[in-house]
């Protein structure tokens, strides 16, 4: 298994050189999910999924509804035991003391409805190992920042959905966790609060906090995430650095924005209108994009914009999921 082989490597290095193990420790992922599977009756919710989340990165866990994202998170947090595979979190299996180093915001938001907001936050914060006085001190700052200070004595049920969402975020971060696992962080938030949460997540990352984020909002993933895993029907269908994935799906085409009419160009197989002022030029395999640009300039075409046609994450998502559905349909 991956985990045991890492350990083996570490041991062998320990005997040969004292510096290298530290490097390995430094690079040891915060989360290592290795070939996990989990079923509920006949339904295979997660099927042989593996991915690592590196320290200090924002990692996107993506997938369509019912893909197995929440189950994967619950296995990772030791809420569910996997039938196969192993999970290493913060350097080993989940323990009770590690729970204090993790902040989790589940998809199903939950707060005690019948008690005042500050009591609820103090209680949930104290369960993360903080002294009540310390929680009190910390929540004051967060309530100010989240514009909830005037609602601190209100019962949770009297708060709006967005306010409850922000309160939930406080419970996730109050104990200054090393790892934050956050399911759909932007649902129910207006643009101002969405921006605030984005800033907060970036701020956490800059402090060295590792963030695992599950969301459907692809533009947020594009903005925030360094790496992603896309799972569908419980299986990993895409995994890696976001820029590499986009490059992998970019095909061999360029987008050219110009007010001029495009002439026939060598090495260009097909031209299609991209939008009102831009064209998509599908290139032959042997064509170099630099040659295309040179040809355009040589012909006196006004080039307002020239870029490699990389698909949006939304497009990649749809393409991959549709392909996966098709393959599964054929197998069935």
């Amino acid at each position: 298994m991956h985990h045991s082989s890492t350990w083996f490597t570490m041991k062998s290095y320990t005997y040969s050189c004292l510096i290298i193990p530290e490097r390995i420790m430094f690079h040891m992922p915060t989360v290592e999910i290795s070939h996990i599977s989990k079923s509920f009756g006949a339904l295979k919710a997660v099927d042989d999924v593996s991915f690592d989340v590196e320290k200090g990165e924002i990692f996107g866990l993506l997938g369509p509804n019912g893909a197995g994202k929440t189950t994967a998170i619950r296995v990772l947090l030791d809420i569910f035991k996997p039938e196969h595979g192993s999970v290493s979190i913060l350097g080993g299996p989940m323990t009770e003391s590690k729970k204090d180093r993790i902040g989790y915001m589940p998809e199903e938001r939950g707060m005690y409805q019948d008690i005042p907001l500050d009591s609820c936050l103090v209680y949930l914060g104290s369960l993360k190992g903080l002294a009540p006085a310390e929680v009190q001190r910390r929540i004051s700052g967060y309530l100010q920042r989240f514009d909830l200070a005037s609602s601190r004595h209100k019962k949770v049920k009297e708060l709006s959905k967005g306010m409850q969402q922000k309160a939930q975020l406080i419970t996730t971060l109050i104990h200054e966790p090393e790892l934050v696992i956050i399911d759909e962080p932007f649902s129910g938030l207006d643009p101002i609060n969405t921006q605030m949460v984005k800033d907060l997540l970036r701020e956490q990352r800059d402090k060295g906090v590792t963030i695992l984020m599950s969301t459907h909002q692809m533009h947020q993933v594009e903005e925030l995430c360094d790496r992603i895993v896309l799972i569908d029907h419980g299986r990993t269908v895409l995994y890696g650095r976001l820029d590499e994935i986009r490059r992998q799906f970019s095909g061999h085409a360029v987008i050219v924005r110009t007010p001029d009419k495009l002439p026939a160009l060598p090495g260009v197989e097909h031209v299609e209108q991209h939008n009102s002022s831009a064209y998509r030029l599908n290139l032959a395999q042997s064509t170099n994009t630099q040659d295309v640009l040179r040809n355009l300039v040589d012909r006196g075409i006004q080039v307002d914009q020239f870029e490699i046609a990389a698909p949006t994450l939304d497009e990649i998502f749809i393409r991959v999921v549709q392909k996966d559905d098709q393959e599964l349909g054929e197998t069935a």
Partner: protein
Amino acid sequence: MSKFWKIASHEYSRHVFRRRFLLALFSVPLIMVFMVVLIFLIIRMDSNPTPIGYIDHSGLLVKAIPQPAVKWPERTVPILPYTDETKAKADLQAGKLQAYYIIPADYLQSGQAQEIYLKEPKGIATQQFDAFLSANLLANQPAEVAQRILDGNNLIVQSADKSREASKDRFINILLPILAGILFIVGMSTSSGYLMQAVVEEKENRTMEIMVTSVSPGQLMSGKVIADIAIGVTQLLVWALFIVLALIIGKNFIPSLGGLKFSGEMIAIIAAVMVPAFIMISGLMAAIGATVSEGSEGQQIMGLFTIPIWLPYIFIALFIQNPNSPLAIVMSFFPLTAPMTVALRLGFTTIPTWQLLISVIILVLSAIGSVWLAGRAFRLGMLRYGQRLHWKEIFSHQRV
């Protein structure tokens, strides 16, 4: 403070300081107080202070000693002597008397007197006149003889092995284990109901997932069970306090309450039966809370368990007749009926030690089993939102 205690104290204060709990807690003693006040009021209203007259032809009351003093809330009904009936009759018709008695010349032989009234006086007036007559009849007797006669008989019935006894003055001792048993069961049923609600609530408001990523399911569950037991004990202590107060006050008015004795043996038996029963019921309620998706559904299932718990109460007449019947013995061994059956039988018989031992062992095993069941149901059902967990899943080989 460990997380386990934080959960226990949070659960305890969340339920105990709720208006609904306080209302339920104090409504029982308040109803008792209300009933006592009502009884006092009835006594006070029944003791009409309009005088009673008498015409003595027997000579017994020539130098009449005054009537014995009465205790509050009873009011003294003045007893006035008349020399002739005409005057007494006129006063009766004028409403100055509620009744008058004619003591005939042969009263000491016949023991009969005549009572004349327009509207029959209440029992209290008659009792006071009887006490007045008795005091005068015994006036020449030594004080202790007079007192002995006034106190009447006190028969003590003993069991053949002399281990148990009952008497008019000590009838309350028969009721005591029954009363303690009922209180215990009411206390644990209501507090276990709170536990079930607390588990369902955390599923309904989706706090469960946050909780299990902060504490272990074991800590969460045991914290809740301890809080539940503390809630039940609070309830019982408050009720016991009111009962003791009622007994202390009531002793002044109901002499037989003075014969009340708490035996260490009885307390030990009740505790040995009720403590595992409490844990067993708490476990069952928590398991129900973990399997259902809504509080109302939980209440219905809870009702199914409440029936066998109270079932022995229906057979109380049979238990009085034969507290050692096969039915009583079997019901003492069945975990859900055992607490009430043992409490009822304790009042009427000496339960053989072997039966008590079997009963306690079965209850302890049931308590362990129910806590295991609750733990498993909890782990399987904690994140089933809006979906019921089937009992067969709990007993399946699914890994949790």
